[in-house]
C-alpha cells in the first residue's frame, strides 16, 4: 500500500551517493565499575539521498543514542568515543559547536516523541515555526510567518490561519505532533531523523502522519532515518530496514527481503513476537535458565539469547555479511532461504 518511488532521482544532480554516512561510530557511557558501557558499537550505516531507512530495535538497544549522536548530542553522560558522521562533505563530529548549531534544524533535523515537551508552552505555535526560518534561513518576519503558515498547510492542520495563533495546550496530541513535524521540515532539511515520532498517536492519526512524513520527504528530496519499535509500520513505510541490538546492526535489508526472507535469528524472533504465535516465538527464544552471558566485545552480542548459538558465536564476532543482494546479516548461522 505504501510504496515509495524515486522517479525524481534522475532529475537533480547528486553531489554524493550518500546522504549521511556513519563510520565506526562508538558511543560509550561511563560506569562506576570502571569499564565504560558501550551503547553504540563501531557502527557503520549509510543512507542514500531520498531513502527512508527504518531502524528497529527494543528499548535499550541504542536507537536514540545513535540518533542523538548523529547530531553530536549523545544523551548525557554518554560520549562519542570514536567514528565519524559524514554529512554534506564534512564530519559532523569534528565540527565546532557553532557550526553544528547552524546545521541542526536547517540541513539535519529531528522529530521526537512527546511533542508537547518540544514546544514552548508560552508561545503561539506559528511563532515557534517562524523563528526557525528566521534564525536558520535569515528570513524577515513576514516571509517567515508565510513559511510557517505554508508548513501548517503542508502538515494538513485544519484552519491553519487560526492555528498559527494557538498555544500548544490548545492542540490535541496529533496536532501538536504535526506542529513538531512542521518545525522539523520548515527549512527543507536534507536529512530527517524521526525518533519514535508516531508511537504516542492513535492508529488513524498515525497513518495520516506517516503518509505526510513520507510525502514531504519525497517532495523535498530528503532522506530519513525512521526509528521505531513497531515493525508493523516498518513493513509498509520504508525502503530499507535495519535491526539494532545492543548497539550493533544485526541485519539490514531492502524492506521486502527483510520481511519475506529474514535471516538473523533475532529478526525472526522479533517478527514472531509480533505475529501472536506463541509456538513460533518460543521456538526462537532461549529460556532464561539456559542463557549464558557473552562478552559482546569478543563474540556475538545476541549469542546469550540465540537458540542457534554455538561455541564459535561466543568466541568470534560475526561480520555483517551480504547473504543476498543488499541483504546483510551479522550471524555465523543465518536462517537459510532458497
Amino acid at each position: 500500500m505504501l510504496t515509495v518511488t524515486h522517479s525524481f532521482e534522475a532529475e537533480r544532480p547528486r553531489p554524493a551517493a550518500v546522504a549521511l554516512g556513519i563510520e565506526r561510530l562508538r558511543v560509550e557511557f561511563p560506569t562506576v565499575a570502571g569499564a565504560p558501557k558501550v551503547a553504540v558499537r563501531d557502527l557503520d550505516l549509510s543512507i542514500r539521498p531520498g531513502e527512508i531507512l527504518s531502524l528497529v530495535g527494543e528499548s535499550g538497544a541504542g536507537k536514540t543514542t545513535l540518533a542523538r549522536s548523529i547530531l553530536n548530542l549523545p544523551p548525557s553522560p554518554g560520549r562519542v568515543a570514536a567514528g565519524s558522521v559524514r554529512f554534506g562533505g564534512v564530519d559532523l563530529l569534528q565540527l565546532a559547536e557553532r557550526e553544528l548549531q547552524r546545521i541542526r534544524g536547517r540541513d539535519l533535523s529531528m522529530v521526537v516523541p512527546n511533542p508537547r515537551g518540544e514546544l514552548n508552552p508560552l508561545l503561539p505555535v506559528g511563532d515557534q515555526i517562524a523563528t526557525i526560518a528566521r534564525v536558520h534561513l535569515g528570513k524577515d518576519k513576514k516571509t517567515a510567518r508565510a513559511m510557517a503558515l505554508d508548513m501548517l498547510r503542508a502538515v494538513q492542520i485544519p484552519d491553519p490561519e487560526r492555528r498559527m495563533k494557538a498555544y500548544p495546550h490548545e492542540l490535541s496530541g496529533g496536532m501538536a505532533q504535526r506542529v513538531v513535524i512542521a518545525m522539523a521540515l520548515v527549512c527543507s532539511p536534507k536529512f530527517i531523523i524521526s525518533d519514535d515520532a508516531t508511537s504516542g498517536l492513535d492508529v488513524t492519526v498515525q497513518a495520516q502522519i506517516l503518509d505526510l512524513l513520507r510525502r514531504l520527504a519525497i517532495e523535498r528530496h530528503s532522506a530519513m532515518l525512521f526509528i521505531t519499535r513497531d515493525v508493523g509500520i516498518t513493513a509498509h513505510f520504508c525502503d530499507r530496514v535495519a535491526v539494532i541490538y545492543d548497539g550493533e546492526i544485526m541485519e539490514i535489508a531492502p524492506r521486502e527481503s527483510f520481511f519475506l526472507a529474514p535471516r538473523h535469528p533475532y529478526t525472526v524472533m522479533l517478527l514472531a513476537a509480533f505475529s501472536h504465535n506463541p509456538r513460533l516465538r518460543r521456538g526462537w527464544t532461549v529460556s532464561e535458565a539456559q542463557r549464558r552471558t557473552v562478552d559482546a566485545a569478543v563474540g556475538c552480542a545476541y549469542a546469550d539469547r540465540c537458540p542457534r548459538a554455538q561455541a564459535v558465536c561466543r568466541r568470534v564476532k560475526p561480520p555483517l555479511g551480504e547473504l543476498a543482494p543488499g541483504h546483510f546479516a551479522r550471524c555465523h548461522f543465518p536462517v537459510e532461504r532458497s
Partner: protein
Amino acid sequence: MSPVLQVEGLYKQFPIAGSHSVVQAINGVSFSIAPGQTLGLVGESGSGKTTVGRCIVGLIEASQGGIRFKGEDISVHRARRPRHLIGKIQLVFQEPAESLDPRMRIGRSIEEPLLALKAPAAERRERVAEAIEWVGLRRDMLDLYPAELSAGQQQRVGIARAMITRPELVVLDEPTSALDPTARAEIIELLMKIQAELGTAYLFISHDLSTVRFISHRVAVMYLGMIVEQGNAAEVFAKPRHPYSVGLLSSVLLPHPHLSLETSVSLKGEIPSPINLPKGCFLASRCPFAVDRCRAEMPPAEDLGGGHLVHCFRHREVARVDRAADTFEEFQREAERILGARDGAPVA
C-alpha cells in the same frame, strides 16, 4: 452461563469547572462478559474506554445506568460496594513503573490486596509465593524494588498483585502498550495462561488492535463514548459492519509488506467534541455512508446474528463495499511460512 459482568445503559458525565457544560464521556454503553472470557474494548484516545473500566472497578461512579457483578448491583463507588466483593474485581494499569510504589519491595506490593481481606500472615506468604509463580517471576525477586526490574517484570508484578485475591474479573487498561514487542508477547501469553488455569474473565482495554484480536473472545468498538459495534472477535475483525470499525481496522499495519487492511471506506474530518455532541449518529459528519436519517436520529443496536450488534442504519451498504476477508488469519499463515524455517537447528 450467566455473565460475570453486565453493563446496562451506562452514562458518565464530567462537569467542566466554571461552566455549566459537561463532557459526555460515556453515552449509553451496554455489554456483558461471560465467566472466563475476554472482552476487548478498542477505540481511539478520548473514546471513553478507560472511563468504562474505571466505572466497573468503582474508582468513579457512573452518572446513570447499571453495573452488575454476578447479578449483584455494583453501580456505586467501590467504597460503598458490599464487603464480600473486595478483591473480586481487580485492575492492572498501563504504566507498570508508575503503578508500583518505588519504595516498597515487590513482595510487599503483591501482598497488599490481601491486607484489605485481613488474611493472616502465613496465608499471605503462601499466596504471594503462589502468585509469583503464576506470573513466572523467581522467589528471590520478592525482596527487590521496582526499579531493579525490567518493564516486563514490573508488569508481571502488577498482574501478580491483581491476581493474588483470585478475582473473577480483571480490568486490564492498556497493560502492554508501554512494553517492548517481546515483553508484550510474553505478557499476553501469560494472561491467556492464567485465564485458562483460573477461569478469570478479562476486560482488555487497548488501542493495539492486533493484540486485541489475538486475546479476545468478543470485541467492542468505542467511538465518542458509545459502543458502535460488538461481537465475536474474529467476526468483527473479518466482517466489520459499522463504518467506524471499518475505518479503525483499516489503519492497522501488519508486519508484512504485502498485507494491508486497506478499504475504500475513509473517514474524513475531525472527531466532534464530547461537550457538544451532535444529534443523531455521532459519526454522521465524517461518514461516507451518512444519509439524512443518520443526522436526525441515533441508530439503535441491530443484531446481525450471534450477538454481533451494530449501531448503524446503513450497515447493509457497508457490507456491500467491504470485503469479507480475514487478513489477520492470512497474516498468521504467512508468519508461519516465513518464520517457521528451522533449518540447521543448533547442535545441543
